[in-house]
């Protein structure tokens, strides 16, 4: 799968798509493939603070429990409620399934993240995909 170029990526396999000072966060296609069937997504409530590089939630597949790491700092403004009842959407459409939206504390933080091309190179080295 091609990684969309309208967003940035982390080495922990999250994506972040910014629009001005707000941004959506999800996990990558590589992440969903590695996890397998996703059965549980847990993210903080609206108003919670995310700190760049720190864990902010959990995603579980049948077999694995994974922490979600914040690609950037910010305040949660919206949570994708669909994923509480239909977490398998993350498998079907990882780049369309945002988990939280935040207001960025410092949009400049995104400059330090990976481009789609760099991320693709990174996962090719990591997993042979």
């Amino acid at each position: 799968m091609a990684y969309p170029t309208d967003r940035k990526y982390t080495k922990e396999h999250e994506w972040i798509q910014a629009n001005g000072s707000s941004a959506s966060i999800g996990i990558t296609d590589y992440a969903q493939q590695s996890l397998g069937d996703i059965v549980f997504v847990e993210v903080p409530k609206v108003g919670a603070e995310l700190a760049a590089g720190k864990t902010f939630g959990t995603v579980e597949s049948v077999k694995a429990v994974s922490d979600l790491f914040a690609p950037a700092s910010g305040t949660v403004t919206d949570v994708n409620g669909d994923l509480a009842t239909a977490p398998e959407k993350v498998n079907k459409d990882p780049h369309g399934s945002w988990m939280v939206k935040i207001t960025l504390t410092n949009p400049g933080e995104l400059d330090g993240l990976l481009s789609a091309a760099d991320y693709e190179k990174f996962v090719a080295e990591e997993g042979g995909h």
Partner: protein
Amino acid sequence: MSSVETTAHEKPAPPVIRKTALNAIHRQMGAKMVEFNGWEMPVEYPASIGCGIINEHLAVRTGAGIFDVSHMGDIRLAGPQALAAVQHISMNDASKLAIHQAQYSALLYPQGTFVDDVIVHRLAEDEYLLVINAGTREKDFSWVRDNTRQFDCDVENLSDDFTQIAIQGPKAVNLLQKLTDADLNQVKFYWVTRGTLCGLKNILLGRTGYTAEDGFEVYIPSDEETSARIWNEILAAGKEFGAVPCGLGARNTLRLEGKLPLYGHEISDTINVWEAGLDRFCKMEKPEFIGRDALEKAKAAGIKRTLVGLEMVERGIARDDYKVQDESGREIGYVTSGSPAPFLKKNIALAYVPVEHSAVGSKVKVVIRGQGAGAVVVPTPFYRRPKKSG
């Protein structure tokens, strides 16, 4: 994102990772490979071929699934005193076995705890085959050899001689019947037969498994070429039944729904037979077997903890080793195996709790990332396969 595999981690990584004869095939099929008890094994096959743990699990409940279980070990005991040897080292009563019959049993330490659980097959008048777990192969073989020296009986480790393939599910019998001349309808559950399989003569076909479903396990020569040919022929024969290849992920969720114990989890060298609830496979009427004396004393003393089935009532998934609390938040036990149950569509777990918390309906909490989530003790097994007439 960083992942923790939740069940394939109980042993520190041994220096050499072993591979089954089907390793190359699994990789060609795109399976996700993991280390399990010193073996590199497929945990699941890719979604692009209709697999993934959930689909693999459902295929076994509704059609058929095919597993490479060559990591399992095999010990053969043969000789005039083979029965006496088997009786001495195992807790079930092997004298009840007819030729070609099998039974679930266990090897015990003198203190009544588990060396391993095993399936004992009686292959001939004086010949038995013990099928043992991957992680305990060497330990089991040494244990069996060392504890049967006084008997006139040869003990052989055949673990590397076989590629073992499990064909499991309600359609397994139909699938396998296409490939063998043996009349499988004549083989009852926990019996074995021999027959020609895909042109290979005199192959052992056992109606056994680890999925809480009907099914067979076949033991073929372990060379790569033969193993690959048979695997592919079984897969091809299974197409019309919706059969898919299955990895250890589905194997674990299937056995959990059926409350089948996993060594290192529900049973271990610190858990005894009564705690594990395996009473019906332990024949105290046998005058002697290793562990019997300790078990007699343990029974008289009464057990303090017991294995129960839990169902989560609050949001959250119980996982292996999570702590269990009573309703007031006091720690009372731990989860031995926990997972979403793909067929039952519930989050289930097996756990050791004090006897006073073990009644069906008892409310407990499972500690998930620091928070107690409500769960209730439910009847087990969680899943029981529908009875077929005949």
